[in-house]
């Protein structure tokens, strides 16, 4: 005779907690060290995010998830989703805080510099713009958006991602294309964009070496 699915008697809170703790230990035993190491290397420190806080947040999220989900089909992927979500939430919160900080007080350099316009020296991208420059930049962005939206799909998306700084390998990976296909679409898309920008009164020229 097999055991019933639910043994007699209600599950106590202590028992439920013990089971969740066991699952948490099991996951963190397998991935805990790796999790901390990866978060340490990957997290955008210059945004003022604390590794300890982030790691604690991941643990709390994991705990909550384990309380409701009793079977984990892909532990690695499962933990990745939780870690990535916690990191991105922390990034968004940090970004909100940064919006309250004057532009000139923001640090420069690194992956996040683009947020403050810190990587460029172009007349359009300098930080601490005066109102006239900011207006010119907004107008230029409108033209770029219009030109990009006029491209033939899927070149518009390929060009959009390229302009956002994604490599052709990354674009291919995201959209399910081979790298040569992504490169080809970006190349053709940029050529098309040049024409479309011309129609907007902007001449696209090659970068100076």
């Amino acid at each position, binding site marked *: 005779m*097999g*055991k*019933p*699915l*639910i*043994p*007699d*008697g*209600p*599950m*106590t809170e202590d*028992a439920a907690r013990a*089971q969740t703790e066991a699952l948490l230990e*099991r996951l963190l035993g*397998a991935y805990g060290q790796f999790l901390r190491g*990866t978060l340490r*290397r*990957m997290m955008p420190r210059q945004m003022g995010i604390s590794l300890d806080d982030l790691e604690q947040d991941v643990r709390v999220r994991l705990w909550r998830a384990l309380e409701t*989900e*009793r*079977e*984990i*089909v*892909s*532990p*690695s992927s499962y933990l*990745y*989703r939780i870690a*990535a979500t916690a*990191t991105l939430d922390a990034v*968004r919160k940090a970004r909100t805080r940064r919006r309250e900080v004057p532009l000139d007080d923001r640090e420069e350099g690194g*992956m996040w510099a*683009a*947020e403050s316009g810190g990587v*460029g020296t*172009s007349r*359009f*991208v300098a930080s601490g713009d005066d109102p006239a420059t900011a207006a010119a*930049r907004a107008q*230029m*962005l409108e033209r*770029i*958006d219009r030109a*990009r939206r006029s491209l033939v799909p899927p070149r518009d*998306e390929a*060009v*959009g*991602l390229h*302009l*956002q*700084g*994604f490599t052709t390998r990354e674009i291919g*990976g*995201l*959209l399910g294309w081979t790298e040569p296909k992504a490169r080809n679409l970006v190349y053709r898309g*940029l050529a098309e964009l040049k024409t479309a920008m011309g129609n907007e009164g902007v*001449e*696209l020229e*090659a970068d*100076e070496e």
Partner: protein
Amino acid sequence: MKLTKSDLQKLTCGRETGDRTGCPTPEQLAACADGAPSSPLTAHVTAHVAGCSACSSELRVALALRSEWPLETRSVDAPVPFPPARRSYARVAWVSALGTAACVVIALLGRSALDRFSRDPVPAPVLRGAEGIFGDPAPADRTVLDAAPARLSLQIDRTRIDPQATFSVALFDAEATRLWESAAEPAPDFALPDSARSVLRPGVAYGWRVFVRDRVETWQSPLYRFEFRP
């Protein structure tokens, strides 16, 4: 007016992002980076990211994190037991005596293990976001059948999942041991092979659930139980 390609990239990346209400959630960005080209979610996210510098920088973080992440290992890959052991940990002997007495009474009344489930149902473990996708199972949950089931099927709202999604079903015993798992099928309708049916014993409760995989997400249905008469 002249503009170089570098200017173009710096302008686009440097765009200040104000209202984020239309942006994908961190969960969606993480799922997109987790790899599922050509899924509706990825298409939605990448189309948005192509024009949003804040989301593009976040997606890049998620991609960087994913690239560092290990592939699935087997070390903790065994299914975590279901259902949560709803066991009383009271340490007094009379509890087990009472339990035994209750079992005898129930047996005398001809009630099956599944009858007890209806009074104390197992919480359905449904992954986040899957609510409402799963419809009626066949056989229905907590059914006592005349014989081991030949088929297991589940109604699913196909409009809410990737058309390319595949389905599999897993059969468990009460200790969460996976007795059998089907191959991936295009529809959530599964014939139980004789090899799977032959391990089932009458009077014993079994559980099954369906997994939906669309290359971004793996969703699992609630757990459905059945037993069959001798």
